[in-house]
């Protein structure tokens, strides 16, 4: 029996090590001084649940730090580590300059099922702000931790947390056989649990989430010509959309999940088409001799923005999903491309060329006011978090392409490093739907 336990321990140690190895390493490159101080005490465990594979308080702490809105207290600076309200001496935490405090514990019921309990306190009032008991299992503790982060974040900022979401992205890496391997992967928003959903020695690009977060559409050159596939994440089963001569690219789901906007060049130059998921029919939306591509739907599903060089240089245009005249949206700069809407529909984010450098910018639709958020040379593929707080994008780090994130006000920036290969084209998932 003793031996079994040892083996079990070893296996779980190996598992957590491999989980670490595949993780993205996150480094906050630019913080903000107005971040709220918060103390997240390590969760206590009862004897029965010792040796948990996840340090819940650490995951919560990392989540909140990544948002840029919070500055979690380092564990070394904690005077003691209370796990219940009775053990908390609020004056101590006031002296450490903390606004808020989180304590918690992990317990097991008679049948061995886990229960994670936490409380969030206002240190100055000495009052509980919120508290929850969440049923858990050893395999979903990271998920529970992200849920706790969401609850704390929403309580303290008034904005829904996006820590339980995921991201899809493309990787490419030169294999030992001299061939480049292209992959589309999906990982938790903090980079853990990366899984490859499809791979090929031919290019893969443009992953796009369905609005329910259960499917991803992407472009693959696996059959030499480009095709668009829609893959169900749970089963791994995929469907190839009818493909045409020329470009089959840039898929983007309508907010109701009934249609895809995409780019085809079957009738000449690249144009935007609308694909009906149910009838599997295509409708042409734009008709220009120029390049029209990179469509994205407004959150109300009535407008589509896209990149077009009909005016000579690529700029962002907007058109009704029913067609008609397209109106130019961007006027600043000689290169604006790959725009997408913020979740509230008030802004777009896009790639703007600034003195030969490609940067991530936002544009407020009402005022036309443009803000440059990043300072890289080849920043691209911006993707809003579903709560609008952050924008994921890809940037260059030496010779490699890596993912990075910037708060939508540009104040907080971070790099996400994945071991090996180039990582690009991040797409932030929608909120989880049940």
């Amino acid at each position: 029996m003793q031996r079994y336990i040892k083996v079990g321990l070893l296996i779980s140690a190996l598992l957590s090590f491999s989980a670490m190895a595949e993780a993205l390493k996150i480094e906050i490159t630019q913080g903000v001084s107005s971040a709220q101080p918060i103390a997240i005490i390590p969760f206590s465990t009862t004897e029965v649940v010792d040796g948990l594979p996840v340090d819940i308080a650490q995951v919560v702490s990392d989540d909140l730090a990544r948002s840029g809105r919070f500055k979690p207290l380092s564990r070394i600076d904690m005077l003691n580590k209370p796990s219940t309200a009775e053990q908390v001496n609020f004056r101590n935490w006031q002296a450490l300059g903390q606004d808020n405090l989180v304590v918690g514990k992990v317990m097991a019921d008679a049948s061995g099922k886990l229960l994670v309990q936490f409380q969030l306190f206002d240190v100055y009032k000495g009052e509980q702000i919120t508290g929850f008991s969440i049923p858990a299992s050893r395999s979903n503790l990271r998920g529970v931790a992200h849920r706790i982060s969401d609850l704390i974040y929403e309580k303290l900022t008034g904005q829904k947390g996006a820590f339980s979401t995921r991201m899809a992205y493309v990787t490419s890496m030169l294999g030992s056989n001299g061939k480049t391997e292209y992959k589309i992967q999906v990982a938790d928003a903090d980079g853990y649990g990366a899984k490859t959903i499809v791979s090929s020695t031919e290019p893969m690009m443009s992953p796009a989430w369905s609005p329910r977060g259960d499917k991803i559409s992407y472009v693959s050159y696996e059959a030499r010509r480009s095709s668009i596939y829609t893959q169900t994440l749970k089963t791994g089963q995929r469907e190839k959309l009818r493909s045409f001569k020329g470009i089959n690219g840039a898929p983007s789901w309508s907010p109701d999940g009934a249609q895809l906007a995409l780019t085809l060049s079957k009738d000449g130059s690249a144009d935007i088409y609308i694909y009906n998921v149910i009838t599997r029919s295509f409708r042409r939306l734009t008709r220009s001799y120029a390049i029209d591509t990179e469509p994205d739907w407004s959150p109300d599903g009535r407008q589509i923005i896209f990149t077009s060089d009909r005016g000579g240089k690529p700029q962002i245009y907007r058109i009704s999903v029913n067609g008609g005249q397209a109106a130019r949206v961007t006027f600043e700069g000689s290169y604006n491309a790959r725009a997408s809407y913020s979740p509230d529909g008030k802004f777009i984010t896009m790639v703007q060329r600034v003195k030969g450098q490609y940067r991530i910018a936002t544009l407020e639709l009402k005022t036309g006011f443009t803000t440059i958020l990043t300072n890289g040379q080849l920043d691209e593929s911006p993707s809003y978090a579903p709560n609008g707080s952050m924008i994921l994008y890809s940037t260059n780090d030496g010779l490699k392409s890596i993912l990075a994130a910037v708060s939508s006000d540009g104040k907080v920036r971070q790099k996400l490093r994945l071991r090996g290969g180039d990582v690009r084209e991040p797409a932030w998932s929608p909120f989880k739907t049940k």
Partner: protein
Amino acid sequence: MKRYQKLMMSLLLSSALAGCSMFGDEESTTSGINGTNDITDTSGGANTTGMSDESDFTGHPLDNPASPLATKVIYFAFDSSVVEPQYEAVLAAHGAYLASNAGVSIFVEGHADERGTREYNVALSERRAKTVQNLLSLQGASSNQTEVVALGEEKPVALGHDEASWHLNRRVELIYPAH
């Protein structure tokens, strides 16, 4: 024939290897179907001219280093889909070759450098490839002998982030799959 067997082998292998890790019981880890490696005899940027009929070359005309047919990659200026004068003879020769070999068909593969957004670059690279396709047609190549594939910046040949690499990546490749 041998080439065909090889292709079949790699197809079998790739289907044997298919099926890896996904969320659940997933379907396929697809592999390059058309084995593009058969067709990468790209002779860098070398522009050989001089068409001596008395060449001792006895191999396939597409491999004759003394013929413009040996050049199968055409490079472009930044943000341009204009074929530069030094490639006119190359495209004339390929167009004429296709015109006199009606059974031969090729891929005209457009590429872009890494600057700018990915799907826009796909469209830009298609514009380059279509310019080349049109020039081949002018020489008598029929439209069903040439197929444009636009790869944008997805298949760079040089990986640096500088003009030297970018120049090599802004290209159109003429690919004779059966050769």
